[in-house]
């Protein structure tokens, strides 16, 4: 009964709106099941059911007398049991099973299985679920073996066994998988204290950690470890040796801290790698691997981000564009059921109250628009202020970067001058977001929308910073490239001179090789870039941690302990405790990831540092948030689809792809360091591999494919495809909107009609009241007849099909499903065509509700 109701609901809901694909699947399954059931019971009708008919009838009589509610449910259960047992006895009586019955039985078994698999989403009591489950399992167990004959039987039994094993394995695997999700408890704890919005940050952090772990595996497994194991050892070549001039200080901590000295000449950076085509006994093509890994880092990240975005988009329903249900949503969905902390709960109560008051005020004064003007003005003002801030900070960074270039040319610069760029950027990152937040208070958005704006603004700030930083870096690189030309000649001549001199002295003895430390080097701009990113990342980590430590923890300690001897209340007054800064933290994470993506090509070790960073910050921030933060004043729920974070991530991924692609495609690699030295461009490594390692025709095919004549049409085709798909999706959207409008109009019409009817036509109502008793008396026998005809197998599939259609109350679904409403329901739907529903002796009252007739809206027909 409940199941039927459930399914009918699904029917009418499901077709009206988009739903998560999971649900759709589930529905489809149900529908299939229903169809199958129908077929099965039809077959059953043809089969001989006479032995059980009497039993059935008596049951029906019983049913007639029993009321609804718990008793009825028990009845139903009993009925179910009886029917199962009768079916079983039936089949055991007849030794020779006919084909028809076999098929039927098979279907029943399938149905039971379906029931088992969907058991958990049935709104039943656990006791009922358990008993039904047990029955279904017994049934399946009993008849599974009976199906099939001879050889087929064995095969079937075997298949069933394997299926069972497979199910068990899947379940175990599922259990294992959930056990493997790290930090689940930690995040749940945070969630229960701070609401889901703070938890969403930690979930994002965890996701990021997973992605970085994969990147780490890629880079370490395919580049760094092969190089360390099989490449030439340290000190064997100039590029793998610390130059003579630096050797004295190469191990000093201050030097290492700047990623100079030994760290600079290690496998963590681009410059260390050799341009040998193959290394070691495996003939591992390291330069090729380096290039491919660099590309696949981006490829994988893009794929993961887009996939998770698509999944989120699937899961999210209509994104609140419906303005119809403001109050209803506020009422029924504003409580965050994950809150488990009195303080948070207090805040939540307060915020719900205010939001109710706000919307009441909105509702009452929706005609007055002076407020709107003021608000608009304030919003524009806030945006202007923020743009000013952004421009200012952009210029400041540009200025500092320029200055640092002059500093870098000078000798004997102090610590501050060397780190000025990082310091300024960190300071900006520290002070601008709170400033934005203050300005954003003018705008008075809902916190969720406010968070998005805030995120967007800080993102712009960071982006500006990043890009000025990149431009400065490009200047630097170009300078280095110019310098390189000079050094190249010097190196050449030095080597030549060395050879000549040794050859001149003694031509028979091979010249003692020049010590690799003494060979003059080019500046190796790739390593420089890598070092810049490394430094920036490390300073970012430090600043983040110190900010948390000072801004949150020390502040909390101060407020907590000094409060006893202070002139005003510190906890309620000025400093108070810090709130967890979601926007800043999310953006810090996104921005940091952008650095990793950009830098990992030139500093393969960067990902390792980032993995460490994410790992520590998970623990550190969890601790900090639990120990020293207070819940937000306006707690709000994060919506389940966090596509906004993902969108930011995708944007920054794309932006960080640009400079890397530019350097790969159009800058010449350094002549004396890195895996691509000696080539004109980095991508030539691919051409080289294809020419040397693949048969000739592959090279030919490749050259055809790489032909602009082919690429341009391909791009054109893609653009056209995008255009077409876009147009199609627009059309769907329009159709959707149209349908929505239609629905609304229908609803309005219905309302009006009913209002009119109810107002002007009391006669009809009386008539309806008269009609009701007849329905009441008429339907149970009818039902009994129905039952008699139908299968007694307890699953009542055919009934489901008919009844599901007639059950629902919504006019839409009614009309839609009228097509396949069986004639036996005609008398029930009749009153509805009059526009008034017959009051009914109560819809189902599954659990212990007071018995007796409660006047309610008629919803089709009586249930038992």
């Amino acid at each position, binding site marked *: 009964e409940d199941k039927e109701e*459930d399914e009918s*609901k699904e029917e*009418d*809901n499901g077709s009206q*709106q988009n739903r*998560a694909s*999971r*649900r759709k699947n*589930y529905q489809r399954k149900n529908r299939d099941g229903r169809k199958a059931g129908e077929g099965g019971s039809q077959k059953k009708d043809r089969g001989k059911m006479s032995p059980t008919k009497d039993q059935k009838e008596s049951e029906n009589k019983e049913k007639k007398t029993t009321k609804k509610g718990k008793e009825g449910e028990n009845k139903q259960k009993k009925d179910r049991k009886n029917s199962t047992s009768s079916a079983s006895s039936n089949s055991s009586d007849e030794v020779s099973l006919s084909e028809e019955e076999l098929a039927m039985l098979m279907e029943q078994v399938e149905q039971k299985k379906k029931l*088992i698999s969907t*058991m*958990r*989403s049935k*709104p039943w*009591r*656990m006791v009922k*679920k358990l008993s039904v*489950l*047990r029955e279904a399992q017994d049934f399946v167990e009993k008849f599974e073996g009976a199906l099939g004959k001879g050889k087929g039987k064995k095969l079937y039994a075997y298949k069933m066994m394997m299926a069972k094993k497979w199910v068990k394995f899947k*379940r175990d695997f599922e*259990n294992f998988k*959930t*056990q493997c999700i790290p930090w689940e408890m930690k995040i749940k704890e945070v969630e*229960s204290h701070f609401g889901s919005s703070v938890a969403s940050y930690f979930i994002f952090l965890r996701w990021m950690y997973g992605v970085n772990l994969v990147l780490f595996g890629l880079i370490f497994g395919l580049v760094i470890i092969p190089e360390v194991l099989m490449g030439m050892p340290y000190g064997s070549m100039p590029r793998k040796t610390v130059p003579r001039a630096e050797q004295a200080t190469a191990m000093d901590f201050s030097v290492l801290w700047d990623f100079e000295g030994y760290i600079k000449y290690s496998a963590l950076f681009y410059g260390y790698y050799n341009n040998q085509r193959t290394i070691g006994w495996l003939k591992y093509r390291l330069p090729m691997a380096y290039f491919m890994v660099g590309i696949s880092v981006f490829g994988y990240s893009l794929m993961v981000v887009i996939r998770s975005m698509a999944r989120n988009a699937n899961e999210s*329903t*209509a*994104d*609140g564009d419906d303005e119809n*249900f*403001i*109050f*209803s*949503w506020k*009422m*029924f*969905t*504003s*409580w965050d*059921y994950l809150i*488990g*902390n*009195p303080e948070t*709960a207090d805040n939540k*109560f307060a915020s*719900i109250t205010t939001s*109710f008051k706000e919307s*009441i005020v909105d509702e009452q004064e929706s005609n007055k628009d002076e407020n709107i003007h003021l608000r608009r003005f304030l919003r524009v003002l806030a945006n202007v202020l923020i743009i000013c801030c952004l421009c200012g900070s952009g210029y400041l960074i540009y200025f500092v970067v320029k200055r640092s270039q002059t500093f870098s040319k000078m000798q004997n610069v102090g610590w501050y001058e060397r780190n000025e760029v990082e310091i300024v950027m960190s300071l900006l990152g520290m002070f601008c977001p709170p400033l934005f937040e203050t300005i954003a208070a003018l705008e008075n958005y809902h916190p969720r929308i406010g968070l998005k704006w805030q995120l967007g603004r800080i993102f712009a700030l960071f982006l500006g910073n990043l890009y000025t930083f990149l431009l400065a870096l490009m200047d630097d690189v170009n300078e280095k490239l110019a310098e390189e030309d000079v050094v190249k000649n010097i190196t050449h001549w030095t080597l030549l001179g060395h050879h000549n001199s040794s050859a001149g002295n003694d031509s028979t003895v091979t010249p003692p090789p020049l010590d690799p430390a003494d060979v003059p080097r080019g500046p190796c701009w790739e390593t420089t870039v890598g070092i810049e990113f490394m430094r920036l990342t490390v300073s970012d980590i430090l600043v983040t941690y110190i900010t948390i430590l000072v801004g949150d923890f020390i502040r909390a300690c101060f407020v907590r302990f000094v409060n006893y001897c202070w002139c005003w209340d510190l906890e309620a007054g000025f400093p108070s405790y810090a709130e967890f800064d979601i926007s800043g933290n999310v953006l810090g994470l996104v921005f940091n990831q952008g650095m990793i993506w950009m830098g990992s090509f030139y500093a393969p070790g960067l990902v390792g540092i980032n993995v460490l960073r994410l790992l520590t910050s998970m623990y550190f921030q969890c601790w900090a948030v639990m120990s020293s933060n207070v819940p937000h004043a306006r707690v709000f*729920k994060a919506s*389940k689809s966090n596509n906004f974070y993902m969108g930011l991530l995708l944007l920054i991924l794309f932006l960080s792809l640009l400079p890397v692609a530019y350097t790969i495609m159009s800058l010449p690699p350094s002549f004396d360091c890195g895996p691509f030295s000696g080539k004109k461009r980095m991508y030539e490594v691919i051409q080289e591999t294809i020419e040397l390692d693949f048969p000739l025709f592959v090279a030919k095919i490749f050259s055809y494919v790489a032909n602009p004549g082919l690429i341009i049409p391909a791009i054109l085709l893609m653009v056209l495809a995008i255009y077409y798909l876009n147009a199609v999706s627009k059309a769907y959207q329009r159709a959707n909107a149209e349908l929505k409008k239609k629905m609304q109009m229908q609803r309005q019409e219905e309302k009006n009609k*009913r*209002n009119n009817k109810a107002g002007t036509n009391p006669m009809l109502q009386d008539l309806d009241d008269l009609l009701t008793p007849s329905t009441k008396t008429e339907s149970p026998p009818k039902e009994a007849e129905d039952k008699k005809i139908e299968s007694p197998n307890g699953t009542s599939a055919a009934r489901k099909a008919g009844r599901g259609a007639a059950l*629902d*109350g*919504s*006019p839409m679904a009614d009309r839609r499903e009228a097509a396949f409403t069986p004639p036996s329901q005609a008398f029930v739907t009749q009153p509805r065509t009059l526009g008034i529903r017959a009051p009914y002796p109560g819809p189902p009252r599954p659990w*212990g*509700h007071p018995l007796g007739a*409660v006047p*309610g*809206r008629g919803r089709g027909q009586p249930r038992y």
Partner: protein
Amino acid sequence: MGNKQTVFTQEQLDAYQDCTFFTRKEILRLFYRYRDLAPQLVPLDYTNKPAVTLPYELIGSMPELKDNPFRQRIAEVFSEHGDGDMTLDDFLDMFSVLSEMAPRDLKAYYAFKIYDFNNDDYICKLDLEKTVNKLTRNELTPEEVSLVCEKVIYEADVDNDGKLSLEDFQHMIVRAPDFL
């Protein structure tokens, strides 16, 4: 997999896994949570299904429910006799529905039950008023409350009978971006 637990038989655990959205470990964890509420009442051996119920006072004191304005209703809806006292089965049922794996339809169904204070299968104005007052801790004036209730009925009542049926409720709530 092979950790020793003697609380449930393997079949029981499997059945529970089929009937809830939980894994084995979670079921055991929930059992221990249940037991921690009243260690003297709940036996450590559930293989022979002892009929133990915990009173509402204990259930309602769980941190998950302690601060929830609807805790009484939740306990009532999920308890077998509608009085808030819970057996382990009811307890598992409740957490299964409230867990994030449960489909929205199921949640909507139970949410409807929770908001339907007088059990008449419709959310009428009285239910709505109760809901608002619980949500705001009686901070709104009666006029405001009734305004809000009228608005809700106006918005969500599709068939215009002055109260929300389950269909109305589901129709409205599955569209809500916040409904988890």
